[in-house]
């Protein structure tokens, strides 16, 4: 499965909209932490999107969570 571009709106939506229904532990923990970061400081959004995109690029097991974003 291909990873959406870092400009894709799904990354931001995962960090601000309804909690995405992901299943892998790492995805759950990371999104939870990044949503907290963005809630506390909205200017952290670009860095959070970069971390989320990098995570999906690095972890093959997380591919199954992409469809939930």
């Amino acid at each position, binding site marked *: 499965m*291909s990873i959406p571009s870092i400009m894709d709106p799904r990354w931001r939506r995962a960090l601000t909209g309804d909690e995405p229904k992901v299943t892998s*532990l*790492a995805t*759950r*923990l990371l999104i939870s*932490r990044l949503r907290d970061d963005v809630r506390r400081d909205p200017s952290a959004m670009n860095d959070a999107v970069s971390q989320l995109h990098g995570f999906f690029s690095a972890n093959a*097991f997380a591919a199954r969570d992409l469809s939930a974003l």
Partner: protein
Amino acid sequence: MRNMFLSTREASDLIASGVVLLAAGSAQALAALPRGKWIGGSTPYFMTAEGGRLDHDKVFCTVLDNAVDVRCAVAGESELPSLLSDRFGNGFSYLLIPAFSAVHQRFAVDAHGLPGLYDQPLIGWVTGIDLGDLGKVKPVVVNGMTGETLEDKAVVMHVALKPDIFAEADIVNLFTQGDGPDLVFPTTGFSASTCVVDGAERNFAEWLRETGAGTELPLVANYNGAMINVAFQGVHENKVDFYAPVVAGRIYRLAASVGDYPSAYGTYCNSLHDAGGATALSCNCILNYLYASLEGRTTGSFTGPVTFGEIAYILLNQTLVRLDLLSGNLAAAAD
């Protein structure tokens, strides 16, 4: 991965054969092992294929047949930020931390912010001792590559995997959030005096006494669907101590009742029999061992050390942690 509960002689022969190995055993048992490609942590409690067991003589070994290379390092409190900097391109890291040490406290609070934490699986456990020796001896970790035994530093093994194998860490947790009030703590830490209970500030110890809540069941926070426990260590006059830190601002609830803990855990574990535990790298918590009376009982097909804290990216309590190696092509998956 191959899980084995061995005599120190058998484990020594295995190490001498050159395999990559993760070990758990009493400090005396670990001290009997030769140098080689292994790291280990102290605990005399184990989940074996025959059930939970206290044993000071044998060692629990997991052989990593799919490892193509390893790097080991030790890290004190100040070196934690660079803990993961020496990882391989494809693999996982296995971390052992002595209980009650400064590095244990620091990891518990700061793990979430470790650079690159989620770029690759990190699992491990907090090393322990015989509960009868509390206050008399200290838990240790051992770097088998150098022969160092340490009470105040963590040891990590970074494992490189073949390109067509990747690792995934997960947890097996009996507990979910109950339907009680939201509990929010104003500060992060292993102790709490004040807690906001459904919006009202309360002394947490007093509130626990008033509600008659037991401390065998943990606090549970929902991390985007992952149920993360914080176990109670003790309720004092005006404060409550935990085995892992509560995080400021996060919403906790008391765990939903499971009825009789030993039978609930037994039923839960029976449902895990087909969950691939025999080939997983796993560990389980000493609190589950005690509260669910696991001595002589199995936890599905999962075997491994019984620990004073579990690590799956962050510090966990009252949880079984597992790591599985899966076949696949990382590059293809990321295309």
